[in-house]
């Protein structure tokens, strides 16, 4: 019998069950002690969760039946969350006021394995774009429900959240406005530049290499180099300071993100416009369309999927890079990450890193759906 993904998931899943599922620490800073899956709460409460995980891994073995494997993955995930909910309340009983419970290696490994099981099954099922949107919405709704219901509020990450709820909202909005705002600015500059590059090969030859060199500059260096530049602009250009342009803060982070975004936007605009089939261009010319009409009615609509792919790359990349803004006072989730690193407070690091990962994944899925919706013509038979 060949090794299959399902078999690999079960073996790894069983191994992960043998690792501590959660940890109990005396306070926020010290290292905790691991607690095994069957010890997180009273046995009658633990058994349903364990059974669900094992059954889910078992269903994942059915190679030819993606729908069953999907159900197995979801069942296993439900069991894992059940264990977490039970453990969060039971382990804190009589553990002292400053005690903290958090998920441990076993939990994270099982989470990754079950999510991969679900993703693998979904890839085989190939749902249509709108169905994918529905699934994403359902998954986010369940996540919001579990977090909002307060059943996990005893977990250390959520304790960190509870003590800085307002800051978290502000930094989330800041993170979003940094990543989406810079995408918008890059699009405003990049689309016209891309169209010009498409028309003039010479401009393209000069622009694209410069933009790709910009992309290679390490993010920390780029953010750092923006500080003296914008500091100089802020102190010499009259009125610049009053609209918030200064050496540290939002402006240098925003500008660095825009610079990083230009290559995917311009590059994919050029590639998208160039992807128009010559026959379609011939026909458009034959119909007597002006160059402007050809651009708006033929080249842009046909190139849209590739252009949107560029925007997807930018959005996902910017959500990740915006974390660095936390180092130069630009705000965003990076604030928590770097505060956490400074205080060696793991939960604070997670409070910054986990939402960033979720935001990037959601952005990638949403943009993929948009790209698929704009694809015309015969379906590619990949």
């Amino acid at each position, binding site marked *: 019998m060949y090794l299959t993904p399902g078999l690999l998931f079960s073996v790894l899943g069983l191994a992960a069950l043998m690792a501590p599922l959660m940890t109990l620490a005396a306070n926020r800073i010290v290292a905790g002690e691991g607690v095994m899956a069957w010890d997180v709460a009273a046995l009658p409460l633990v058994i349903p969760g364990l059974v669900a995980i094992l059954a889910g891994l078992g269903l994942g073995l059915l190679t030819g039946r993606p729908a069953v494997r999907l159900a197995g993955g979801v069942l296993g995930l439900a069991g894992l969350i059940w264990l977490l909910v039970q453990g969060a309340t039971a382990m804190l009983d009589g553990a002292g006021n400053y005690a903290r419970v958090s998920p441990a*290696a076993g939990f994270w490994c099982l989470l990754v394995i079950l999510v991969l099981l679900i993703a693998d099954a979904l890839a085989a099922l190939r749902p249509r774009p709108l169905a994918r949107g529905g699934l994403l919405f359902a998954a986010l709704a369940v996540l919001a429900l579990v977090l909002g219901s307060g059943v996990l509020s005893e977990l250390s990450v959520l304790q960190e959240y509870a003590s800085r709820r307002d800051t978290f909202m502000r930094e989330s909005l800041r993170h979003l406005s940094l990543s989406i705002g810079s995408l918008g600015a890059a699009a405003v500059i990049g689309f016209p530049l891309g169209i010009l590059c498409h028309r003039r090969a010479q401009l393209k030859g000069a622009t694209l290499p410069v933009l790709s060199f910009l992309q290679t500059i*390490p993010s920390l*260096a780029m953010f750092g*180099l923006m500080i003296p530049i914008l500091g100089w602009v802020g102190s010499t250009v009259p009125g610049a300071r009053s609209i918030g342009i200064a050496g540290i803060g939002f402006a240098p982070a925003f500008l660095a993100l825009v610079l990083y975004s230009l290559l995917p936007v311009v590059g994919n605009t050029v590639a998208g416009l160039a992807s128009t089939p010559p026959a379609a261009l011939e026909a458009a010319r034959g119909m007597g369309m002006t160059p402007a009409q050809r651009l708006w009615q033929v080249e842009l609509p046909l190139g849209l999927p590739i252009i949107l792919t560029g925007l997807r790359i930018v959005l996902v990349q910017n959500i990740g890079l915006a974390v660095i803004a936390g180092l130069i006072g630009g705000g965003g989730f990076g604030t928590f990450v770097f505060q956490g690193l400074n205080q060696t407070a793991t939960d604070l690091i997670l409070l910054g890193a986990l939402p960033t990962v979720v935001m990037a*994944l959601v952005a*990638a899925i949403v943009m993929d759906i948009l790209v698929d919706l704009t694809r015309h013509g015969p379906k590619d038979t990949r």
Partner: protein
Amino acid sequence: MRIGVILRPLLVAILLAMVLRPDWFRPVFEPFAPAGGPVIYERASLLSLSLSHLGIVALASLAATIVAVTLAILVTRPAGAAFRPLSRTITNMGQTFPPVAVLALTVPALGFGTGPTLVALFLYGLLPIFENAFTALTTLPPATMDAARGIGLNRWQRLIRVELPLALPVTLTGIRLSIVIALGTATIGSTVAARTLGEVIIAGLLTNNTAFVLQGGLIVGLFAVLIYDALVQLEGYLARRMGG
């Protein structure tokens, strides 16, 4: 190209001078330093930081290349076919994980220092290399493969003499992407106490000393741009040899 002939040696010379003779640049950075504050980073020698930075990147990228290419070879053999969709899912999902988040998440698991940075760089570096090697190995020209089979090469010979050499240019592009990301992520690694050039930038940010930020930023930026350029040249050279 003509600009490159002048620019390349010039940038290399500037970079070498900045790393080996930082004092020469005192007048350049002086205006950016706070009054009476230090102008040139002296807490550690820039040479040792550069070597440590490049060493971390080289080690992580080498390990990532070996593992990723091996995995790509395995899933493109008949026995590994069941893992193809999964490997595509993992690379797609993995690449949406921000490198900084990967770095931050390895700290709770492994603690501070150079170790977690190496692991984060290695894990993240796998993805572009695997993706490119996989694409290259699955899109080989069918006629060439038929010819290889026709002249009686066995599977092993086909892999070594035909498939891998043909897949080399595209795989190298993946390695280049991975090295560029690793250079950048290693810079951030200094926030988790890895010894890299990011230390200079972070020290500047913490003490509001723009001179340090500029010094560190320029050195890291020059390294990245020159290494990227060198790898592009190497790819071009190999592609010409393959295609010629």
